[in-house]
Every structure is written in structure tokens, then in C-alpha cells.
């Protein structure tokens, strides 16, 4: 009974997502091109890291194979979050056209409706690049395998995914106040992604505060990687923090939901 209840509750979201996914795959050639271009973007960013490391041997105490682990973790979780939450950045279009009102006429929470209003399957290609980089990093960076790594790795991926997803919600909530603010919030979201692929050891103190803790990007990839590799970790970001990746996810969602609630109230005019 509880099961049918849950399945019935999920039915609206399933119906929309299934139909969106179907419509993206209808034109096979088109979908293949989408996948290809998405993969290309991932490869270019990976190449950027490779170019950097053909000039230096180590950055922030990490060598190329170790950085691959950071890059792979960050890109895999970000791509998966982008796939399922990335379209939240279309909220300004809804606001300008007044079509957000339509969501109010349906008996589901507004945020859940928006999250499940679309899915970008082409990001799967990008996620595959991230997964490949992660795989190569794991195989070549001298990871000592054991139960710790086996637990920390999936924990880091799931937490990273949730942290980035929360960041998308966070940015969407702010859109209510900045009608043309997609540029600004994109700077945080995509800047955050970029920061996540970097070794946080090279950051200045203010950067460590901003992208280490306030937008907890260091927790999505760098810190778990440091913990997995058994490295000491830089000042302010000790290696044991890698285990606190789930806390970063909770923080990101807390801020995300707070901003969303705040934004929605602003939209309805019920006071801040």
C-alpha cells in the first residue's frame, strides 16, 4: 500500500521526465551531435589540465595523475547535477514570460515541478568523460585500496552531486531578485565547478573561505581526493575534512532551500 502510494505520488514527475527524455532521443542524429558536442567541451577542459601539467610537474602538492582524480570526481558529480538540475537556470525565462504561474495551478510543490520539468540527456557524455578521468586517476595515482577508499569514493560522488544540485537551487532562488541575473549566478555555479576541479591548496585565504566553505566546492572533489590519496592537506583544509563531504551537501541544500523559499515569497509578494 505504501509502495503504490509512493509510486502514485511520483507519477506526475515520471510522466514529464519520460516524455522529455523521449523527445530528446526522437531525432537520433541530432541527439548524437548533442552528445558529441557535450563530450567535446569535457575533453577541452581535460586538455586544459593536461597542458598545464606538461609545463609544471606538480601544482598545490598534486601531480597530474592525482589531479585527474580531482577533475574526474568534480566533473562527474557536476555533470550529473547539471543533467538533472541544470535547467533551473531557465527560471528567468519563466519569470519574464509569466509562465511560472502555470506551475502554481498544479498540485505539486513548485520547486519539484521545476526540477522535474526537464532533463538534459546530452550531459551524459560529459559525465562519461568525468568518469573516465576518475577511472584513470584511480588506476594511476597510487591509490591504496581498502575499505576506507571503497566507502569514501561513492560517498564523495553522491555528496558532490548533491552539493552541486543544491548550488543550482541556490542560484535559482536568487533569480527571483535578479531578473537579468543569470550571468551573475552562472558565474557562481560554473565558477564553482571550475574551482572544484582545482587543487584547493593553491587558493588564497579568501578563496579558501569562499569556495572552501561558503560555496563548499573543495568538499566535492579536492578534499575527498586528498583523503583517498593519503595526502596531508593544506592549511585550513585538513585531509580529514574529506569525510565531511555530506555535511557540505547538507549546507548547500540548506542555503539553496532558504534562498528558494525567500525568492518564492518575494515573487508572491508575501514579504521577505
Amino acid at each position: 500500500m505504501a509502495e503504490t502510494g509512493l509510486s502514485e505520488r511520483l507519477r506526475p514527475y515520471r510522466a514529464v521526465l519520460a516524455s522529455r527524455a523521449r523527445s530528446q532521443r526522437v531525432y537520433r542524429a541530432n541527439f548524437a551531435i548533442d552528445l558529441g558536442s557535450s563530450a567535446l567541451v569535457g575533453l577541452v577542459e581535460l586538455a586544459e589540465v593536461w597542458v598545464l601539467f606538461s609545463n609544471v610537474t606538480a601544482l598545490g602538492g598534486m601531480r597530474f595523475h592525482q589531479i585527474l582524480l580531482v577533475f574526474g570526481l568534480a566533473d562527474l558529480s557536476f555533470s550529473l547535477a547539471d543533467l538533472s538540475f541544470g535547467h533551473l537556470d531557465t527560471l528567468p525565462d519563466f519569470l519574464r514570460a509569466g509562465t511560472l504561474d502555470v506551475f502554481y495551478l498544479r498540485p505539486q510543490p513548485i520547486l519539484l515541478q521545476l526540477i522535474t520539468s526537464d532533463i538534459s540527456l546530452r550531459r551524459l557524455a560529459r559525465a562519461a568523460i568525468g568518469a573516465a578521468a576518475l577511472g584513470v586517476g584511480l588506476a594511476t595515482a597510487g591509490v591504496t585500496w581498502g575499505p576506507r577508499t571503497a566507502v569514501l569514493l561513492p560517498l564523495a560522488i553522491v555528496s558532490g552531486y548533491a552539493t552541486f544540485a543544491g548550488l543550482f537551487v541556490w542560484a535559482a532562488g536568487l533569480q527571483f531578485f535578479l531578473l537579468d541575473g543569470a550571468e551573475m549566478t552562472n558565474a557562481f555555479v560554473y565558477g564553482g565547478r571550475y574551482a572544484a576541479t582545482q587543487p584547493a591548496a593553491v587558493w588564497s585565504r579568501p578563496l579558501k573561505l569562499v569556495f572552501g566553505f561558503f560555496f563548499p566546492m573543495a568538499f566535492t572533489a579536492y578534499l575527498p581526493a586528498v583523503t583517498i590519496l593519503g595526502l596531508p592537506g593544506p592549511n585550513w583544509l585538513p585531509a580529514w575534512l574529506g569525510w565531511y563531504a555530506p555535511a557540505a551537501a547538507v549546507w548547500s541544500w540548506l542555503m539553496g532551500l532558504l534562498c528558494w523559499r525567500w525568492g518564492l515569497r518575494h515573487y508572491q509578494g508575501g514579504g521577505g
Partner: protein
Amino acid sequence: MSGATNTGAITTGAIIEADGLTREFRVRDGKRRRLVTAVDGLTFAIEPGEAVGYIGANGAGKSTTIKMLTGILVPTAGSVRTCGLRPVSDRRRLARQVGVVFGQRSQLWWDLPVRESFRILAAIHALTGAEERDRTAELVERLELGSFWSVPVRQLSLGQRMRAEVAAALLHSPRLVILDEPTIGLDVLSKQRLREFLVGERRLHGTTLLLTTHDMGDVERLCDRILVIDHGRLAYDGDLPGLSRTVGVERVLVVDLAEPMPDLTGLGGARHLSSEAGGLRQRLAFDAEQTTAAKVLAAVSDKAEVLDLTVEEPDIEDVVRRIYAAGR
């Protein structure tokens, strides 16, 4: 509407109850901020089964009222209950009982076939398989959606799209249907079809209708009560004959004559407005409460041979202007 409702809803008490409903907006006026009162102390009640026309000039506060009735906007002051619920805090429960058609804002999926949009909406409103089948079949038949059922929404004509929009808003058999400019931009035939459907929906299911419109024909054919709003305040609440008595709602009969004639004055019940082409075309105003187009036409035919004719509906903007003028 005697016991026509099959929604199982309890029909005691008003379906919409607004009490001192007020909404202010802060707008930026150059560098200064200014407070604009869009809806100002609105008090009214609508009983289940009524069909109410909500009319007013652009910017009079119609859309703001609808948004407060459906939980999209929070009132600045006053209170409102829709279907016995508080729209903002009970929004999700309310959504199951209300259907809204925003003429300009589609709730269909642009790139999907109409059929697919309805399948998704059935899931959204948690209709059972049988409910979905029966209601969809009923709407497809009565709104004649069959010919474009598998066509993507973006390829529909405006008339087709509006029919699909109305069907979409009514798929979950709401007790209350709110329509914001449902006939705007439609051709005569599409308007007629839509009105007939709404009249039928009310007769069959006892559905309450609230519609905003700029079309006097909508009001005449659909509504038994009219609310006129002016600068956010209620300027008139009553039926159409009452409105006619208050401000005089005149129709205009335009006749094309076989030969030029002097101005057709002195016809019982009709007033000569103007002549064109040396008297070949003449415009005659008459009050639909006092006489009929047929009687005026007969009176004209006694004097001249009529080749062609049209009847112009009273302009709602004009009616509203006169109410505003009468109220001051």
C-alpha cells in the same frame, strides 16, 4: 443549477469569498519607489454554479485578483477563500478543485502532441485510468479536438490552441473554472464553439465560471452576473439588464441600402447614428432591452430596400467607461 454537480463536492457556502481584498505593488518610477494599489478593498461572494463576468479596463486589477484567488499572489490586506480554502497556504489542495485558463500563457507542452500533454496532465492530477479515458473522450468530442489530437501544440492555430487550453484546464473536472480572456483574438466561429462548450459544461457538471473578457458577447451569452472593477474597486455588481438600465448598453445595426436615402430618423426604438456614401450605409443604435434587431430591420425595410446588414455588439470598453463616468 439544481443538483447538477457530480463532483461530490459539498456545495454549501460561497465558492469564492473576498473580504476587503487588497493588493499593493511597489513600482520603480524613475529613481523613486511608488506604491500602487492594484486591488483596493474588494468584497464579494460567488455562489457555486454561478457564471460571473469580471470586467474592467486594462490595468483595472483583474489579473491581480485572479492571482490572489488562485494562490499565486499574497494579498496585502483582506482575506479570500476559494472553494473554502486559503489560496496561498492550501494552494496544492486548491489546484485539484480549480481550473484556470490564462489566454496568453499556455499550460501545454509546446513541442509535444496535444495527446501527450493531456497524458501528462492526467498524471499531474492523479486521475485514474478510467477517469482519464472518460474525461478525455468527453473533452475531445465536445471541443472537437480530434482533428489535431496528434499535432504538436506549436503547430496549432490560435482557435485550436485555445480549445486545447480550455480542455487542459478542465481535464481534472474542477468545480471552479477561471478564464482570463478566453476568446481574445479568436474568430467568430471559434468564439461561438467555446461559449457553447462552456454553457454545456455548466449545465452538465454545475461548474462555476469566472471569466475576464473584453468581449460583450462573452458576457451576454455566458454570464448571469457581472462584476465591474475600476481602479481596483468594485464599480458594479449585478446582472446584464441591470447594467443596461444603469448605463444603456446599445447595439448598432448597420444596413446597406439599395439606393441612397436621407438619414433614417424617427424609427421606433432606434436612433440614427451616422450615414456613409451619401446614405447608402446607415448606422442605427438600439437598446436590446427595448426592442430587437428584427423589429428595427422591419422598420427600415418599410422605408428602403436593405441589401446587407451587420449587428455590432456594444463595446465593453465603452460600457466600462460609462459606468466609471456614472460613478463619479
